[in-house]
C-alpha cells in the first residue's frame, strides 16, 4: 500500500512539473527563456513520472518479467536524462549562431 502511495505521489509531482513546463512555454517572452522552461521541466517531469511507474510495476511481486519491465522504464528515463539537455543545447546554439537577439528587461517597458 505504501509503495502505491509513493508511486502516485511521484507521478503527480511529475505531472505538476509538466504543467509548469507547458505554462512556461506559453508565457515566457522569447525563445531562450522558453528553453529554460521546456528543457528543465520536461526532463524532471519525465524522470519523476517514469520512476513512479517503475515503482508501481514492482508492487505486484518480484517476478522476472516485472523486473525486466522496470529496468526498461529506468533505461528510458536514463536516456531522456542524457538526451534532453543535449537537445536543448543544440537548439540554443542554433539560435545563437543565427544571432537571434535575447529578450532583455529594458525593452519590455515600452
Amino acid at each position, binding site marked *: 500500500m505504501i509503495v502505491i502511495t509513493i508511486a502516485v505521489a511521484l507521478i503527480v509531482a511529475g505531472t*505538476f*512539473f509538466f504543467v*509548469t513546463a507547458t*505554462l*512556461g512555454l506559453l*508565457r*515566457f*517572452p*522569447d525563445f*531562450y*527563456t522558453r*528553453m*529554460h*522552461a521546456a*528543457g*528543465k*521541466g520536461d*526532463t*524532471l517531469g519525465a524522470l519523476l513520472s517514469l520512476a513512479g511507474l517503475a515503482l508501481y510495476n514492482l508492487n505486484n511481486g518480484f517476478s522476472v*518479467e516485472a523486473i*525486466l519491465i522496470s*529496468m*526498461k522504464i529506468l*533505461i528510458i528515463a536514463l536516456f531522456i536524462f*542524457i538526451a534532453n*539537455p*543535449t537537445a*536543448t*543545447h543544440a537548439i*540554443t*546554439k542554433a*539560435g*545563437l549562431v543565427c544571432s537571434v537577439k*535575447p*529578450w*532583455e*528587461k529594458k525593452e519590455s517597458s515600452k
Partner: protein
Amino acid sequence: MKYVIVFLVLYLHWILWSGKFDVFHLSLGVISCALVTFMSHNLYIQSEKLSPRIIKESFRFIKYVPWLLYQIILSNIHVASLVLSPGMPIDPKIIRYKTKLKSELSLVTFANSITLTPGTITADIVDGEYYVHALSKKVADDLMAGEMEDKVAQIFEED
C-alpha cells in the same frame, strides 16, 4: 578487450529488450550483437587503451548524481515559481564563463549539468569559454562561484 566490452553491453540490452530466454532468441542475439560489434566497435569507445582509471571515475560519477538530482529539483522549483508568479520577474542575459576543464568528457558533463541546474543554459563553447544564458543576475553569480565546476573537476581528476 574493446570487443568484449561492447559485445557484453549490447548483449545485455538484447536480453533486456527481447525478454525471451529460449535458445532461438538467445542465439539470434549472439549473431546480431557479434555483427554489430565487428562493424562499429570503435564508435562506442574512442580512447586507444582502457585504463583502470575509468572504473574509479565511474564510481565518483555515481556519487555525483544524487547531488545533481537535488540541484535539478531546486532548479525546477525555481522555474515553476517564476512561471506561476504574475509579474514574471526575469532579467535574462548571456554571460561568459571561463573554464579550467580540459578533457572532452568533463566538458560535456559540465555543460549538461549547467543546463540542468537553476536558471542557466549552455549555448556554446569556444576555446574553453562557455556562453551561458542566465535567467537572472542571482543565478549567474551562483554559477560564477564555481562550486559545480570543482565537483566535476574532482570526478575526472583534473587539477
